[in-house]
């Protein structure tokens, strides 16, 4: 494969001259990053900065007795040794609940616990020293008296009467439960010719961002202001929560986010050990830095996906699906994570299962229970990989049962492309989807028929290859329906300010943040197109609560669809402002002018009238020459949030082609395909790479990744040698293609694309493995990750 050259617009839905929409423009920040000249929080150094390391609980559940700190305090370089009780005088606790998740409950969580450690790895005592090494030296000298308590580690028995209750004041270990029923499920199953029932299990896994979590808090007592350098996805959310729990006004807190070494949902939550850092800085009146090391990351970065789903599907001989039923149980940590809660993933499983299909007889329930393991919360594609694998796993099993091709059963049951607007059995609403078009494109792209022929031929030689499909929807562009309505101060709107500088160049200040997905490029492309300048004349400013409009940041595939639209509108507004100035200079009508390629032109003829540099010069330095009463405006700000639909759903289809070594149980991935539909594509290359990266994260969950715990709640593989992340040698090439169904809610028409890959990949791999092994009579594999051990067992080889 060759490097994709930038190509002229092919996908643009927008009628602008010299548009950058739909072009693979290289990202402006890449040269810096390829030279190692990025600036991540872990690189940042401030005067008088000190480092914190934590004494962490070796037990999953223990009463904290006396904490002896005298020896540690004497250790070289140590500045302070701080316990939970001391820190609680500076920072208040929180409870991770939202009102729209009815009945969700959790217990107050402190920056450092007061009397009880509730998971192995929970920070119990902070040691601040001049260097990280010195802080670690002194951590070894802190003597904490623990009394080990029984740990709740099995989600299946967490609600049993004899199981201890982790937070007795809550009454039981149930965090959240929801049931949903639509259509006539009993009748649906009664009408079925075949009913397939199975249990899907998903391995608890985690984000393993290449740069671990990192934060520097700098309280300046003179200014009475806290500046936080934070590797986060949502600077304004962090600002709000730091202020709230330190008892400050938001104005007193500035959050700066420069380069972030990967986030994927890991860096969108409030972590107790990060709250401790802001409190420590306030306490010590100096900058305090915390960079989680990899061992800490494994036991503190949120985990996700620890779900067990019992599921049933009814199907007629002609392939019509007649009913669905799912029962999801998930074991989170000892606390629901703040502020997004740990109920969302299960809630999403209920919302998203069966969502692509016409059968509306759907019964679902979920239960979320507390465990003494590390906390769980939202990680890339929240709930999707589970809902998609369950749904698509059921569809494939049903197809196999009635002897129908997996593509054919999907064709017969997916919501027709002309049936929109429509909704899922869970009630979520779809503006416009293209399930059939994507599936058709997918089967063409992968040459489905010849692949089947090859599979058949190789089977005769004892080579077992499998083809697996998923069709799916992805939640993007979330409105306030996601968090805001539940009372969280997590903004669903984004803002953009576009400014003309004194040389006629522009800067875009956006509340969206860059995590590597390419938001900076997207904003530059959109602003350049909307305003009318070459992209080199656009500078993007992000990740600074002092210098960007208020907004949500980066999560739930929202940056381009929401923040991009705000930038589009602001760019247009500034064009209007600048044309008004130009018109008054030229004594023309603004409507008769346009800005193209950085020059004000006659709209009709394209004739050049005046350069932007000249407009800016007059506006800033010779406003005296403008007509009396005319005030030039060189800045425009716009905000945007979708209102009509709670979410802009996208859809897609994926296929996996793989080979199972039936002697060893090893799976070799041969190829992966994804066709997705994220509406208007601003930069095809960026979308493709979001999909590819996402697919590989999904493959990780399907084949490799799992946080293994023993019955006492000890994580057994919390390092990168034992926790298997996907590496280059095991992965296939991934082909990506698109359908384009723009959302009519915004002018750009862009939806999100960040999670489609992760949503659909695990189910596709699962279905492919089962497809490969079906002729051997193997029991279908539904327990991720699919290790050689499990595959050999399914084959009856051991």
């Amino acid at each position, binding site marked *: 494969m060759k490097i994709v050259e930038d190509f002229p617009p092919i996908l643009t839905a927008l009628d602008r001259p010299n548009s950058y929409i739909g072009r693979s423009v290289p990202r402006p920040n890449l040269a810096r990053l390829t*030279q190692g000249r990025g600036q991540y929080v*872990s*690189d940042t150094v401030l005067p008088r900065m000190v480092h914190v390391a934590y004494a962490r609980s070796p037990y999953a559940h223990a009463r904290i007795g006396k904490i002896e700190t005298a020896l540690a305090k004497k250790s070289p370089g140590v500045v302070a040794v701080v316990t939970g009780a001391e820190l609680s005088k500076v920072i208040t606790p929180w409870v991770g609940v939202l009102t729209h998740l009815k009945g969700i409950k959790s217990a107050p969580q402190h920056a450092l616990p007061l009397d009880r450690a509730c998971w192995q790895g929970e920070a119990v005592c902070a040691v601040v020293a001049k260097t990280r090494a010195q802080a670690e030296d002194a951590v070894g000298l802190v003597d904490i008296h623990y009394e080990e308590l029984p740990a709740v580690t099995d989600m299946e028995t967490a609600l049993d009467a004899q199981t201890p209750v982790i937070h007795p004041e809550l009454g039981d270990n149930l965090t959240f439960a929801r049931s949903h029923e639509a259509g006539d499920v009993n009748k649906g199953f009664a009408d079925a010719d075949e009913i397939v029932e199975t249990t899907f299990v998903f391995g608890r896994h985690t984000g393993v961002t*290449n740069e671990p979590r990192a934060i520097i808090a700098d309280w300046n007592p003179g200014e009475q202001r806290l500046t936080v350098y934070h590797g986060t996805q949502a600077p304004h959310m962090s600002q709000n929560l730091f202020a709230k729990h330190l008892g400050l006004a938001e104005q007193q807190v500035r959050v700066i986010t420069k*380069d972030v070494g990967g986030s*994927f949902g890991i860096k969108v939550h409030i972590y107790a050990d990060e709250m401790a850092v802001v409190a420590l800085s306030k306490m010590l009146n100096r900058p305090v830095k915390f960079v989680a090391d990899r061992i800490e990351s494994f036991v503190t970065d949120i985990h996700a996906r620890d779900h067990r789903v019992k599921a049933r599907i009814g199907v007629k001989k002609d392939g019509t699906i007649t009913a669905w039923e799912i029962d999801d149980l998930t074991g989170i940590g000892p606390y629901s994570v703040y502020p997004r809660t740990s109920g969302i993933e299960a809630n999403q499983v209920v919302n998203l299962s069966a969502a692509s299909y016409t059968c509306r007889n759907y019964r679902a329930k979920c239960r979320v229970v507390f465990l003494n393991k590390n906390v769980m919360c939202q990680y890339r594609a929240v709930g999707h990989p589970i809902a998609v694998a369950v749904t698509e796993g059921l569809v494939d099993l049903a197809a196999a049962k009635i002897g129908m091709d997996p593509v054919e059963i999907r064709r017969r049951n997916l919501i027709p492309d002309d049936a929109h607007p429509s909704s899922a059995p869970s009630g979520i609403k779809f503006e416009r989807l293209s399930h059939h078009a994507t599936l058709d494109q997918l089967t063409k792209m992968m040459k489905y028929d010849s692949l089947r022929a090859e599979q058949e031929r190789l089977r005769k030689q004892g080579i077992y290859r499998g083809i697996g499909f998923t069709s799916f929807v992805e939640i993007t562009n979330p409105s306030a329906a996601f968090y805001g309505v539940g009372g969280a101060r997590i903004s669903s709107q984004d803002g953009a300010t576009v400014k003309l500088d004194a040389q006629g160049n522009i800067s875009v200040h956006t509340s969206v943040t860059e995590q590597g997905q390419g938001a900076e490029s997207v904003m530059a492309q959109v602003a350049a197109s909307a305003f009318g300048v070459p992209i080199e004349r656009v500078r993007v400013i992000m990740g600074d609560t002092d210098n960007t409009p208020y907004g949500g940041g980066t999560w739930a595939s929202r940056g381009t669809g929401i923040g991009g639209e705000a930038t589009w509108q602001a760019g247009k507004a500034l064009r209007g402002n600048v044309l008004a100035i130009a018109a008054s200079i030229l004594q023309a009508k603004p409507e008769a002018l346009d800005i193209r390629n950085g020059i004000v032109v006659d709209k009709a003829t394209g004739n050049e009238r005046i350069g932007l540099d000249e407009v800016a010069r007059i506006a800033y330095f010779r406003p005296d020459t403008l007509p009396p009463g005319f005030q030039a405006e060189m800045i425009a700000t716009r905000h945007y949030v979708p209102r009509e639909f709670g979410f802009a759903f996208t859809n897609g289809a994926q296929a996996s082609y793989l080979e199972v070594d039936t002697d060893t149980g090893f799976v070799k991935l041969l190829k992966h395909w994804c066709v997705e539909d994220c509406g208007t594509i601003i930069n095809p290359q960026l979308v493709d*790479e979001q999909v590819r*990266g996402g697919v590989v994260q999904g493959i990780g969950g399907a084949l490799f990744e799992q946080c293994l715990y023993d019955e006492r709640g000890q994580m057994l593989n919390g390092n990168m040698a034992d926790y298997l992340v996907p590496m*280059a040698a095991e992965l296939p090439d991934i082909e990506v293609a698109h359908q384009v169904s723009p959302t009519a809610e915004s002018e750009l028409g862009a939806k999100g694309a960040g999670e489609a*890959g992760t949503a659909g990949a695990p189910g596709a791999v699962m279905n492919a493995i089962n497809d490969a092994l079906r002729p051997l009579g193997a029991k279908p594999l539904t327990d991720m990750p699919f290790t050689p051990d499990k595959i050999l067992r399914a084959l009856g080889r051991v």
Partner: protein
Amino acid sequence: MSGQIHDITLTVNGQEISETVAARVTIADFLRDNLGLTGTRLGCEHGVCGTCTVRIDGVITRGCLVLAVQCAGTRVETIEGVSDTGEIADLQDAFRRRNALQCGFCTPGMLLTAQELLTRAKDSGNVPSREAIREHLSGNYCRCTGYHAIVDAVEAVAQARAGEK
């Protein structure tokens, strides 16, 4: 020379450096903390992720698994150094145009690792296959890209350097 503190002299990116270091300081920490060369990154500090990759006496090495004192008298090169000399300008440009990086945290390690493969391939007159590229990069973790774009970029440079275009 035996103790916890040592005076060392080494060449970093072509410049001679003399510093006093504690024995326990790794070359990666030394580059980052003493010299401010933060392009050498720390993703795991136990040898698995490859973000700390530097060249010591011309060969790529895990910077988190070598002590600074051990580098006395050696020639150390970092991503900043090879950027400034222009040695990998074509590779960097290919990464940029192919969007073979997202967050960029793995990128310095990837580039230095890929450069070793490319140099060896050039010396032996081969253009490495995609499989060989994947294998050579097998010790460098990237969470963002899924590797495909990285393989594309490295492959394109291998072909270009071999004069194949």
